[in-house]
């Protein structure tokens, strides 16, 4: 039921992006985030689509994985599309019937906003979650934010918490699935009934999920104690982060892509 969601899941295809230093990926991710929000014209949007496809190819992401990444976000995308389409009344009228008014500005906005969201998810996946293990993302953040340690920000602890949270996502999804099946056997029905009833139905799933998460957290804390975890000070790393030549190449290539995007926006866009 829930196990075909790949949001936040790592898929190893052994591509160059998988091997790239996670710090570089985090920086590139921020650059692309800015780009995605800077894009404001259809021309630049096309360039962004091409870039995203190239990224997916470079990451050797299978189509079905890409699809399952995008799928859960589609309803929201559609919602944003419709919202923009029907609420923006400026520009030339393309279509009008009774109270419905669709304008060219509305249509462009709708396409732009909904695609932005899609690209946001795809970039997050391809640059971070799908190609980088949570532990590496945490490593990267820890390393990038380490200057903050000087002002007593618990950077190591925060990154450890994050990586553990991510590590438990598949476990919790599996558990949710089990609980839902058990309650369905007892007559629960999550798909029909009024909205309020459906929300109530999910509450009965969430309670046991919370309870067991607390139990897991307790167990895990003891297990970490037993394995001599005592904070970040003395810890070494099995796979320490090291920038290599290919990392720099990836960095430059992706930066050029981003630059191209901005250029398209500035030169060809509105």
């Amino acid at each position, binding site marked *: 039921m829930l196990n075909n969601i790949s949001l936040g899941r*790592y898929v*190893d295809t052994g591509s160059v992006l998988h091997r790239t230093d996670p710090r570089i990926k985090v920086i590139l991710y921020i650059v692309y985030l800015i780009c995605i929000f800077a894009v404001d014209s259809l021309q630049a949007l096309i360039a962004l689509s091409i870039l995203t496809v190239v990224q997916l190819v470079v990451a050797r992401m299978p189509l079905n994985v890409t699809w399952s990444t995008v799928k859960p976000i589609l309803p929201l995308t559609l919602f944003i599309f419709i919202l923009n389409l029907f609420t923006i009344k400026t520009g030339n009228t393309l279509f009008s019937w009774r109270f419905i008014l669709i304008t060219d500005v509305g249509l462009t906005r709708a396409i732009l906003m909904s695609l932005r969201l899609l690209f946001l998810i795809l970039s997050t996946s391809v640059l971070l979650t799908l190609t980088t*293990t*949570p*532990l590496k993302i945490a490593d990267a953040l820890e390393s990038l934010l380490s200057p903050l340690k000087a002002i007593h920000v618990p950077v190591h602890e925060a990154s450890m918490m994050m*990586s*553990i949270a*991510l*590590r438990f996502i*598949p*476990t919790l999804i599996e*558990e949710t699935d*089990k*609980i839902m*099946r*058990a*309650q*369905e*056997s*007892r*007559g*629960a*029905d999550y798909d029909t009934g009024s909205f309020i009833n459906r929300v109530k139905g999910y509450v*009965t*799933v969430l*309670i*046991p999920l919370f*309870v*067991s998460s607390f*139990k*897991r957290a307790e*167990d*895990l804390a*003891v*297990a*970490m*104690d*037993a*394995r*001599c*975890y*005592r904070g970040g000070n*003395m*810890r*070494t*790393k*099995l*796979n*320490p982060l090291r920038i290599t030549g290919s990392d720099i190449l990836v960095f430059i290539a992706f930066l050029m892509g981003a630059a191209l995007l901005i250029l398209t926006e500035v030169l060809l866009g509105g």
Partner: protein
Amino acid sequence: MASGISVKHICFAYKNDDTGEAFPKALDDISLDVDIGSYCAVLGPNGSGKSTLAKLIDVLELPDEGEICVLGITASDEESYYDIRQRCAYVFQNPDNQIVGTIVEEDVAFGPENLGIQLPELRERVDEALRYVGLYDLRKREAASLSGGQKQKLAIAGALAMRPKVLILDESTAMLDPVSRDEFLDLVEKMNREKGITVLTITHDMNEAARCERIFVIEKGKVTMTGTPPEIFSHPDKLNMAGLELPQDISLVNEISKLADKTLTEEDIRDEEARLNTAVRYARLATSRPEEPQVVIPEARRKLLEVSDLSYSYDNGRTYALEHINLSVYEGEILAIVGKSGCGKTTLISHLNGIVRPQQGQVVLYGKDGEVLSTSRKKDLARIRQSVGLVFQYPEYQLFEETVEKDIAYGLIKLQTPEENRPARVKAAAIIAGLTEDVLTKSPFELSGGQKRRAALAGVLVMKPSVLVLDEPAAGLDPIGRIEMFMTILALRDAGTTVIIVSHNMDEAARYADRIFCIKDGREVGTGTASELFKDEETAGALGLSMPILYDFSAKIKTRLKKEYPGIKLMPPYPVPSQEAASIVRSVLDAE
């Protein structure tokens, strides 16, 4: 001699986190010594304090009184805690709750990273540990995608990478199927033998304990018995008093010796050879000819549930979780579904009440008045779910209401049963499930593990299902808990409920089920009674089943008897040690 683990006069009580109030003592003036390099078991029922003891040894809790010395180190200050934890590796019960790393090798590295081990030694340790447990090829895999058995091996690898001197197993095999459990224990024994690692296993699995060198039996926070397995197992009554039972093979020898009015000595059961000799010797000395064991042969009954040509694939036909399954369930029987982890058992039972609906084939329920309900028809689903109750594994983790009463009533509300009928039905269900009435008003989260499971069971029984499907109903329970659970199941059957149990304990399947359905890699490989399926090792092996320990041992006795009495007439095996003992003794007396 270098000391191993020495526990001296330890007292310990858990404290309430909020009030600081102490609970009753979990450990009460307990003392024991574990020699370095030995392989010891701590046995005891649930709540006896055995896990607490293990946690104290690894300084995960601190004693209220007394002293623990591990490899010459006494826990005195923070530094010494880490010295001990570094030398004592700990493997917990739940495979999922001890994995820190997302990727297999990252998890193995977690311990040595904490110790500050530098590269390249760190890499060497990780690779060596992974090779040792046989997970090296999976080192880049996501840890969450491993099977239960593999996850426990991963935990062992994580422990090994810290180069420990002591390995503590805290019910580490409780959640594993028999094949994974044997592999896991073989690995542990190898570590004990080759690396000289001292092993202390906390368990209530008697067969696991039988493999150890030394056993400590703990009851209510005290050590009540200490000795080698033969020493311990030659006192079956004392063991029963402690809420434990004999391993099935020794139990058979014990039952035979009872018929000869003899009590077992340590020598009698020293090893398998001695056990066989004792069984044969005492079978001859029986004082009187025992009655023929009564086994109820089920009469021909009405077909209640029928699965026909059922196939199911999770990945659009690339691989099949179920392939052409045919299964009929008859009214009033107990049917066991057995097979290895991942063989399709859960997918199959999820079909029985339409939680998963057939992609090919069908599942049909025959109602009392001749009506036919199919899970393929959406309008039949509600009726089917009411008639076929499904209790998944570890159902205690699925309770959610404020009170047990409300939790049990959940299904009734969903089915819109009239409100005035509910309290009586809830109460009745709770009692059948083995709960007392006073529990009903409590929060489910206050109950003990065993009570929680019963509350979850009551939540399904309240719907008055005509078929009850139970996935591993006794998983994780101690010997007494297991027996009580099966007594409840037998009582349900006697009251007219048809029961389907999924189990990987062959001895229990043979003992309690009328028929056994064997599934392997999604296909049916055999259906029949225990004595048909477990006729001999060859038949069982062909079905991919491990022989029940009782049957296996009794077959060895019978081989020996055939040599001694060429014309002896032997009966097919019975599933209960006392019955089988009677049957063997009768055969021997007849032959003489």
